[in-house]
């Protein structure tokens, strides 16, 4: 390996306070610019894996490093500086519905401007420019001054993506970004993520439940089962047998998006 890995897990283990094991022991290395899709049934540890990268869920043992920097285990300045380089997109969008789209996107700049400016909502012109460009990239520039809560689900997720882009991150983590969207919007959002990965070269890790989406949009697929990596390979070479292994059962109509749409 010549270049530093964007994300590297070594013996990463997460045990929750209630005793549940989130990650059993994960070794995984993701190269800069890769587009990785993580699949697995619910409870397999997909979310935990992503949340370990930006320290939202601290590891119990082992280590995870972002661009060679180990992720601190406790809240503080060091962790905030690391999070500034890692954008996150959530299943439920997690935008503040009563604020304008613009303000929600500017939240992506919080770690890049002096705290007092962020506190007083006085953003430098350069940061406003970055926020506008992020909105342009997801195609909702015209909604900049609309209340975020007044947008449709797909548009709200675009606000979430724009907020992540406004961070000018090295890595984007997307935790089930399309799980609360309809099939048409789902494909649009997935295409947006792939395009951003290709145009800006941002390393992207996406958790998905649907197998057909994973195969269609992923370059590399990582399969998780019971907190362990049980599959890691190119998206085009993944077989039905591999999916059976990842899920521990035969994939059914509920595991494919088009199967859902057909019903």
């Amino acid at each position: 390996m010549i270049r530093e890995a964007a994300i590297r897990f070594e013996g990463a283990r997460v045990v929750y306070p209630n005793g549940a094991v989130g990650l059993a022991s994960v070794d995984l290395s993701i190269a800069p610019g890769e587009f990785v899709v993580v699949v697995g049934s619910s409870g397999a540890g997909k979310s935990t894996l992503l949340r370990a990268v930006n320290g939202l869920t601290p590891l119990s043992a082992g280590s995870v490093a972002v661009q060679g920097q180990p992720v601190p285990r406790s809240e503080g300045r060091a962790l905030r500086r690391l999070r500034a380089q890692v954008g996150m997109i959530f299943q439920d969008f997690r935008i503040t519905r009563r604020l304008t789209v613009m303000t929600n996107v500017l939240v992506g700049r919080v770690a890049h401007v002096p705290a007092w400016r962020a506190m007083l909502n006085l953003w430098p012109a350069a940061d406003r420019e970055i926020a506008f460009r992020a909105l342009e990239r997801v195609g909702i520039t015209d909604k900049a001054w609309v209340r975020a809560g007044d947008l449709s689900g797909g548009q709200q997720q675009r606000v979430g993506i724009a907020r992540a882009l406004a961070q000018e991150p090295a890595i984007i983590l997307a935790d089930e970004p399309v799980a609360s969207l309809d099939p048409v919007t789902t494909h649009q959002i997935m295409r947006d993520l792939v395009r951003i990965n290709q145009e800006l070269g941002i390393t992207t890790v996406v958790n998905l439940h649907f197998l057909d989406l994973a195969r269609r949009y992923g370059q590399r697929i990582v399969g998780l089962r019971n907190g362990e990596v049980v599959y890691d390979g190119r998206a085009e070479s993944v077989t039905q047998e591999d999916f059976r292994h990842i899920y521990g059962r035969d994939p059914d109509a509920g595991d494919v998006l088009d199967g859902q749409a057909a019903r």
Partner: protein
Amino acid sequence: MSDAVTRPLRPARNWALIIGAVTAVTLMTWWSGRGIRFSLTELACNLPGGRRLLVESWPPEFSFFPRLLAPLLETLQIAVVGTVIGGILAVPVAVLAARNLTPGFLVWFVDRNFMNILRTLPDLFWAMLFAAAVGFGPIAGALALTVFTVAVISKLWSESLEAIDMGVPEAVRASGGSWLQMLQFGAIPQALPHYVSYALYAFELNVRASMILGLVGAGGIGMVLETQRSTFEYPRVTLIVLSVLVIVLIIEQVSESIRRRLI
């Protein structure tokens, strides 16, 4: 998809509203500050004497406690009588003020305004009025709390009655039931738990209120408080305040735990 959408201008804020609201609040605060005649010099004059009084008021004069027992008991009796009579009278007031149950617009209109006017006067005003009408003593207090209870329960319960499912009441009417039968079998049973809860809540408020009714001669512990206060027997005042607090807290705890089980 070639060129970017033009960036919309930030819509002008409603400065008239913002400036108007800020000015109004500032002016009102300035005017009120003058209105309450806050003056540092007067404060400085009073502080030494006040401090002495405060120091004197601790410890409370516990030997005075036996003389509080009868008035404390009377206070609770006033609260019980006021709550029961008021609780019964509140039923028709609430029913007639519920838009879905009232027999006619005129009745509703009169009753609703009657209810609102009852609510404008504080409990102690009613106590003063009844003390003037029937003479100093616990009966005046019980009557004042009766009015206060009607005001509290009818307002809250009429809202619960408006929220009931009208299916059963309409079925009772359709099968030839009278208006009263509709209430008895269709409407009231649905909102009965709310009624009990509000009655208990009113009882809590009444216990609290009954403790101070005596300040204007309407019976109970407040009458003792008033004599001790006006002769500056603050060690006794402290004892009274403490016993009032203990009783109020006990009643509230018991009542709250019952209410929590009801709804």
